[in-house]
């Protein structure tokens, strides 16, 4: 077994060399190798686009490459588990989005808000109800009026039961506007269903259906937010129609594992701030109707845990 011996000697030599190099993970040199960004959903979705755009824009300020890896599964929890269990050395970042936080409220995964340090909330958008331009009810008043008279007759395409979508519909039902929740797992099929006339409306954030809104196939009728959306000044809020539903915005954040050294978090936070201040980012968030002033630090952390508690409370009702 001469080979085995040779292999061992070779391995040992290499290892000793490596150990001499080791222990350089401290912050003064950070980052000195690529920083991985885990996108917690498959390629092609809203979280993926955000992650990839952010990765491109953060490469400059951080001075290293930021490869994106898609780790989909379990409503984003698979990727977060990976983020949580990787060393908290700032070399792994991840996307943490409201959909995943809502999934914690319905008992999915074993991740908690405390497991993550939110670097910044970079995108946020309230959701709307959209109706197809060929549909019978072109305003929220007409839609709600019909739903009041015909409970369950209006079908709304959503992303699932136990999500913000479901909570919103439940709140509407409590106010006497009972509409049928029709969950579509695949986003593409969800968007196609009202356009094809198979559902009467769709609950979605405007960024994800931007091209259909611009093409005039989908018409926004009501926004679930405290104020009207600046890009859609003619669309009333639900509060104006007598049902106050807000605080269920879709947001997307960049996060690292809890326990990451504070100076590394500061460095990443700075890089995110540089990225979000860039023209490219502005163009991106304008296109997806999701521009916000980035929320950082404790406020960002609180946003995540409050959101989970809010959804949990609503689902328990």
């Amino acid at each position, binding site marked *: 077994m001469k*080979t085995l011996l040779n*292999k061992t000697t070779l*391995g040992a030599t*290499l*290892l000793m*060399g*490596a*150990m001499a*190099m*080791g222990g350089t993970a401290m912050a003064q040199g950070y980052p000195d*190798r*690529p920083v*991985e960004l885990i996108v917690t959903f498959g390629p092609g979705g809203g979280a993926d686009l955000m992650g990839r755009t952010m990765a491109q824009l953060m490469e400059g300020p951080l001075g290293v490459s930021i*490869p*994106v*890896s898609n780790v989909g599964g379990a409503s984003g929890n698979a990727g977060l588990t990976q983020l949580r269990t990787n060393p908290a050395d700032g070399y792994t970042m991840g996307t943490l989005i409201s959909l995943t936080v809502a999934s914690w409220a*319905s*008992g999915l995964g074993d991740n908690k808000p405390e497991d993550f340090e939110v670097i910044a909330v970079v995108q946020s958008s309230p959701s709307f109800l959209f109706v197809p331009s060929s549909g019978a009810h072109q305003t929220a008043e007409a839609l709600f009026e019909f739903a009041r008279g015909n409970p369950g007759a209006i079908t709304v395409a959503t992303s699932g*039961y*136990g999500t913000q979508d*479901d909570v919103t519909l439940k709140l509407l039902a409590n106010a006497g506007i009972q509409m049928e*929740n029709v969950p579509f797992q695949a986003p593409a099929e969800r968007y196609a269903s009202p356009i094809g006339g198979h559902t009467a409306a769709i609950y979605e954030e405007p960024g994800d259906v931007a091209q259909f809104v611009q093409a005039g196939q989908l018409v926004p009728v009501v926004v679930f937010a405290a104020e009207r959306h600046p890009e859609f000044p003619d669309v009333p809020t639900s509060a104006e129609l007598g049902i106050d539903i807000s605080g269920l915005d879709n947001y997307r954040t960049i996060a690292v594992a809890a326990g990451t050294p504070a100076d590394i978090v500061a460095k990443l936070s700075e890089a995110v701030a540089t990225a979000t201040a860039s023209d490219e980012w502005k163009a991106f968030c304008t296109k997806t109707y999701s521009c916000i002033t980035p929320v950082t630090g404790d406020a960002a952390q609180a946003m995540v845990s409050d959101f989970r508690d809010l959804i949990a409370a609503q*689902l*328990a009702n």
Partner: protein
Amino acid sequence: MASAKPNQDLGQMPQAGRGIPPGFLRLLPTLIPLALLVLALVLPGHMFQSDQTASRVGLGPAAWPRAMLMGMAVFAALWIARDIWVLSAAGRKPTLSIPVEDTPYHFGKAIIGLIMIVAYGWLLPKIGFATATAIFILVWCLFGGLRNLLVVVPVTLIGTIALLWLFMGLALMPLPRGAGVFDNFSIWLLRATGIY
């Protein structure tokens, strides 16, 4: 080339044709559907870990798997029934037909191969992709009958580096780097090969 018929030096008794011991063979055709029938009956009770809160509307998340398991139970039962029917008279063929290989099948070699593959996957996150792959290729080639070190060692090293470069360098895949010293070694290697 070293690949020509390397099996003689292994003390395996090649079992002609089929790769299963004959005693087990008679039992197997009924054991499989029986196991699947039991599985189909037991699994519905283990579907969820937590309470079902959001599932009060519609058919619920359990409906589809339950229906499919029920279907599986029915067909597994049919399978057993058919096998009993086969046993009741001579000349009937059992439901499961065990394939006949046209070459001798070395059962022991296959098991060792499976163990090597599983060990590779198990070691992967512990010692990292590069180290695990190099060891795996080396050991597999040696076991597979390729004993010429002048071939095996270069193939191992060049192959590992090429795979590393292709997947971690070009395709930017976050393949496991290993834990502890192996992580440091992987980072050193990735720097040395210009990937990081």
